[in-house]
């Protein structure tokens, strides 16, 4: 064994010591059973269940032979209990259910058309759900898995949307080609914004991104880019028709495109998190110091994660511009960043399926919150008419207390409880 390796393993040993407590706590929590209520106050938005599955993804593959020599050896203390490993063994089958869901979602197109079951408007709604789900997934990657707080992801949404709109409207670029361009631009912008943000942690990063989100509408109205952006008026687009003479309405066609994009982005996201860089991303969130000790280039990973996250949100923005057929500076105010954040927290901040729940939540609260608050106002006979933002706010605070893992985390806990009861009886 060379000297280098010796020091590396000595460091790993030290980290193991460090982490042993952490793992033990996690296991004790799993044994105790009532995870959420126990840690709701102290553990923050990541429910123990989510943390544990992340830890499972993050560390168990490290024991694999091919990673044996890597400095990212799994600390023994963080080894997960067998119960948490079970879903991993079943991974081969786990493709089945997502496959069925995707096939069902795709087959929805068959029910549309003139006089069909699903109106064009409903296709638009479904597409928007998926678009927001992609955006929420982007924020999840950054905030949930990497631990960097962003209140400004609306900015990258805007960048993607305007890239698509400007290219289509001013340069007659094919709408599909605008997506990779938006992705590249957003990656560069996100990476560059992530670089100074590296020095910032927690609240400071939140502040920097907060400032970004607040300034976005003004930046979009900047006089010298008015020729491109159309200033306050924004840009009107026309939804593309289905190619090859397919018997689909534009809304149906865009639904197919958005669905494909969503599947692609979720697939990439899952593979990313399952990969070695993905484990590094999670390690930086859980144990920043240990991650550095293990030889992870924290700075590069953080900035890159910021860039990747911006790609997700930017693509969502571009798709939004195309299906919504309109961009304007005032659609990208701070509210949008808040909506994405709310979606992430509601769905489950460190959960991929949670992103889909979050996306649905963002879209439907946008659509139905007004009506729901009106009904609620009438029901309780309030003297004033509540606004959707009140619901946002109350929900955010309540979730942090009651269900820090979001809906996905809550469901996971519930399923785990049911399973445990079954195995006992």
């Amino acid at each position: 064994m060379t000297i280098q390796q010796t020091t590396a393993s000595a460091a790993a040993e030290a980290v193991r010591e460090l982490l042993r407590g952490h793992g033990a706590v996690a296991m004790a929590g799993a044994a105790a059973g009532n995870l959420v209520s126990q840690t709701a106050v102290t553990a923050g938005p990541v429910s123990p269940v989510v943390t544990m599955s992340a830890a499972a993804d993050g560390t168990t593959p490290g024991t694999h032979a091919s990673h044996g020599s890597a400095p990212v050896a799994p600390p023994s203390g963080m080894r997960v209990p067998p119960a948490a490993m079970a879903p991993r063994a079943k991974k081969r089958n786990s493709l089945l259910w997502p496959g069925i869901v995707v096939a069902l979602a795709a087959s929805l197109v068959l029910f549309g058309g003139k006089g069909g079951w699903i109106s064009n408007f409903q296709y638009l709604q479904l597409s928007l759900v998926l678009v927001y789900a992609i955006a929420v997934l982007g924020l999840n990657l950054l905030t949930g898995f990497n631990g960097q707080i962003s209140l400004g992801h609306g900015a990258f949404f805007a960048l993607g949307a305007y890239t698509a709109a400007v290219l289509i409207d001013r340069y007659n670029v094919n709408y599909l080609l605008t997506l990779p361009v938006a992705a590249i631009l957003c990656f560069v912008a996100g990476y560059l914004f992530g670089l100074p943000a590296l020095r910032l942690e927690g609240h400071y990063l939140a502040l920097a991104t907060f400032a970004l989100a607040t300034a976005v509408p003004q930046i979009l109205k900047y006089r010298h880019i008015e020729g491109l952006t159309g200033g306050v008026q924004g840009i009107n687009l026309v939804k593309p028709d289905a190619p090859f003479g397919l018997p689909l309405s534009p809304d149906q066609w865009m639904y197919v495109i958005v669905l494909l994009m969503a599947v692609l982005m979720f697939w990439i996201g899952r593979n990313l998190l399952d990969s070695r860089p993905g484990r590094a991303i999670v390690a930086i969130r859980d144990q920043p110091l240990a991650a550095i000790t293990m030889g992870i280039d924290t700075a590069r990973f953080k900035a890159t994660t910021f860039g990747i996250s911006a790609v997700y949100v930017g693509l969502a923005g571009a798709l939004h511009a195309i299906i919504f057929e309109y961009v304007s500076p005032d659609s990208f105010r701070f509210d949008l960043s808040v909506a994405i954040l709310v979606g992430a927290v509601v769905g489950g901040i460190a959960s991929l399926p949670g992103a889909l729940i979050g996306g649905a939540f963002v879209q439907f609260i946008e659509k139905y919150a007004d009506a729901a608050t009106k009904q609620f106002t009438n029901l309780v006979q309030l003297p004033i008419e509540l606004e959707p933002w009140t619901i946002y706010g109350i929900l955010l605070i309540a979730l942090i207390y009651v269900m820090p893992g979001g809906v996905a985390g809550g469901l996971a806990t519930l399923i785990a409880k049911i399973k445990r009861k079954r195995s006992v009886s």
Partner: protein
Amino acid sequence: MEQLLQQIASGLASGAIYACVALALVMIFTATEHLNFAQGEMAMFSTYLCWQLIQFGLGFWTALAIAAGLSFVIGVLIERIILRPLAGASALSVVVVFIGLLAIFHSMAGAIWSHTIKSFPSPFPEVSFAGSGIIGPHQIGMVVVTIAMLSALFAFFRFTTLGLAMRAAAQNPTSARLVGVNVDWMLALGWGLAAAIGAVAGAMVAPVVYLEPNMMSSILLYGFAGALVGGISSPGGAVFGGFMVGVLENLVAYFGNLTEKTFGVYIIGNGEKLSVALIIVITILTLKPAGLFGRVITKRV
């Protein structure tokens, strides 16, 4: 030249408001290391309270005093009920709760008082005096009131036992607890004071920017910028920083205007106010996160 002086004077006046907001932010930060993103909306809500009291027929100063008192109570309640259980929670939880508070205050103000823009009376008489071409009576009033409030706060923290206890609780909670300071309540008092300062700042700036639920969004950002410039851990620095970004903001607009007139090139103007704040925030955070007067915090690992 007179225009430049005018700009500096009005920069100082808006700087006074930024200084108040920055101070409120710093008070909460030094005690809890939280950046209160809801500070601006809380101040806006307090301003609406004040406006409502004036509508009920109260005089300006009575209304302001009552509104500040109510805000103090609201601030204390928020700390006790919402934030106390989150002590020791991750930064993300706290930030999310602040965003939740922001959303609640914003929408409640809109729901109760509607989103239409309201004018807000100025308590200062419209008189002309020597130099009134450069600075208006309301602007002087703003600066005077702010400085009076800041002096009172300084005296409170410097010369009273309660102020000393609050400083102790913020600087070293463990030792403060050992000598019998009720640290929890000191934090709540800090929140209350911050909310009350916000109420005064809101009522002072409302006659200028008019009363509407969005009135504080850019002011909050400048408050953050001011607090960062001065050093987020230093109250005096935050006040100085607030005045500084106020003047800076107006000078940027002035020189932007000047270059446009002389060279015919538009670079920057009033429309880019928030971008200027963004640039200040990012620059300070990147180059000198401790600010001008803040102490550099070293962490033992």
